[in-house]
């Protein structure tokens, strides 16, 4: 290695070796940097090139040649490296799509908001009979099915929730008023018959 370095030092004097043409030098730098696992310092690039080449000049020309292409020649900590253009970062992500059904809590909360909007969190909890989990409402907001509505003009001015256009789109509704009422649901068999209000099951028949 030391003999090589010594030889390099002499290259200005030494005119015996014809240096490769400029285009060829560019190709060399290009290939070296492309194949390298790590950024390469100028000295190392130069050391790998044949005698009489000007690695820095080749780097500069190469950098200009790549310019605004999808790949750029950049100087990073530790040397020179090719990097994909930052504005194309979105291409370096692939999406694995997964479809999940909304949980029971999610769909119930959504139904309450749809039918009772604008409705406060406390009201949702009263209707469902359980505390609303933060995650459930957050997910509905994230899905853009639900958004914050006007504040209720009552003490504490609680926030209300309403459904969105996206919600209507997803469920194929022209407007929230198109949601069928309880009576219609009953007629459509969506609601089962209420328990018989007749004789009391004193003999425990109901348990059987």
């Amino acid at each position, binding site marked *: 290695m030391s003999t090589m370095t010594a030889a390099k030092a002499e290259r200005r004097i030494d005119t015996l070796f014809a240096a490769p043409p400029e285009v060829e030098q560019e190709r060399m730098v290009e*290939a070296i940097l*492309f194949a390298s*696992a790590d950024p390469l310092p100028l000295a190392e690039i130069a050391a790998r090139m044949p005698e009489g080449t000007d690695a820095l000049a080749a780097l500069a020309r190469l950098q200009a040649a790549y310019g605004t292409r999808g790949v750029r020649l950049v100087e990073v900590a530790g040397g020179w490296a090719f990097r994909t253009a930052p504005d194309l970062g979105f291409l370096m992500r*692939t999406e694995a799509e997964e479809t999940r059904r909304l949980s029971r809590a999610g*769909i119930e909360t959504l139904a309450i908001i749809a*039918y009772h909007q604008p409705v406060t969190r406390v009201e949702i909890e009263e209707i469902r009979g359980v505390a609303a989990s933060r995650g459930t409402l957050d997910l509905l907001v994230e899905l853009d099915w639900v958004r914050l509505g006007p504040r209720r003009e009552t003490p504490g001015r609680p926030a209300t929730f309403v459904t969105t256009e996206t919600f209507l789109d997803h469920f194929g509704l022209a407007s929230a008023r198109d*949601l069928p009422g309880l009576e219609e649901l009953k007629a459509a068999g*969506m609601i089962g018959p209420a328990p018989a209000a007749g004789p009391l099951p004193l003999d425990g028949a109901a348990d059987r």
Partner: protein
Amino acid sequence: MSPFETVDGDDDARPTDEPSFTVDIDGFEGPLDMLLSLARAQKVDLRRISVLQLAEQYLAFVASARNRRIELAADYLVMAAWLAYLKSRLLLPPEETDEEPSGEDLAARLALRLERLDAMRRAAAKLMARDRLGQEVFSRGAPETVQIERALTWTAGLGDLLKAYARIGTKEIDRPLRFDRPPIWGVEAALTRLREALGACPDWRALAEHLPPDWLTDVQRCRSAVAGGFVATLELARRGELELRQEGSFAPLMIRAAEPQTRKDAA
């Protein structure tokens, strides 16, 4: 060192009962390899080789090996026997009734076989002469990892929504059967409360002050509490446990614990 640096990679497949000493006849890999080598030496197109000459060369080689007491591997001897047979078929005129393939057929098959092996040798050479990845050609040294983003799509149909609402809407109906306690402050409860209250605070007080505050929140419950308290007051007065007075019509009804004297009289 790699076990494949030498050309004897095939030896390990041989059963151990074979002679352990095998003549590595100048590195030939079996009789076919050797025949191909002899055929090449004829320096003609493999399609035009003299199979007879080839057979004679091979047999001569085997004979010389025997003379030098070199033990040949079995497949070399099998090939020698077959070539001797081939030679005889080639030299003797074919019989009319012969059902065996003719000498020429056999020779052609051997030639084809050599050709096919030769073709693979050449193909292998071409393959290995290609620019190979990691030797002459290189891939990106610093590949950028592609992030896989799991995009969750949540779905719910209108049917789900309606069912959910129906479920909530009918919760009242669907709940287990039980008797609701009617919003009535019963006389028994009123009696207990008034006795306790008068014990703690025997002086004149308005009846309303002795009523439970949580029953005065809505009209229905308030009425019940007032009624319950009034009936209890009358009952306690009848028993001589309290005294009551009212300044005028609709004035607050005042009560206090009865004097012990009064109580005794009543008893």
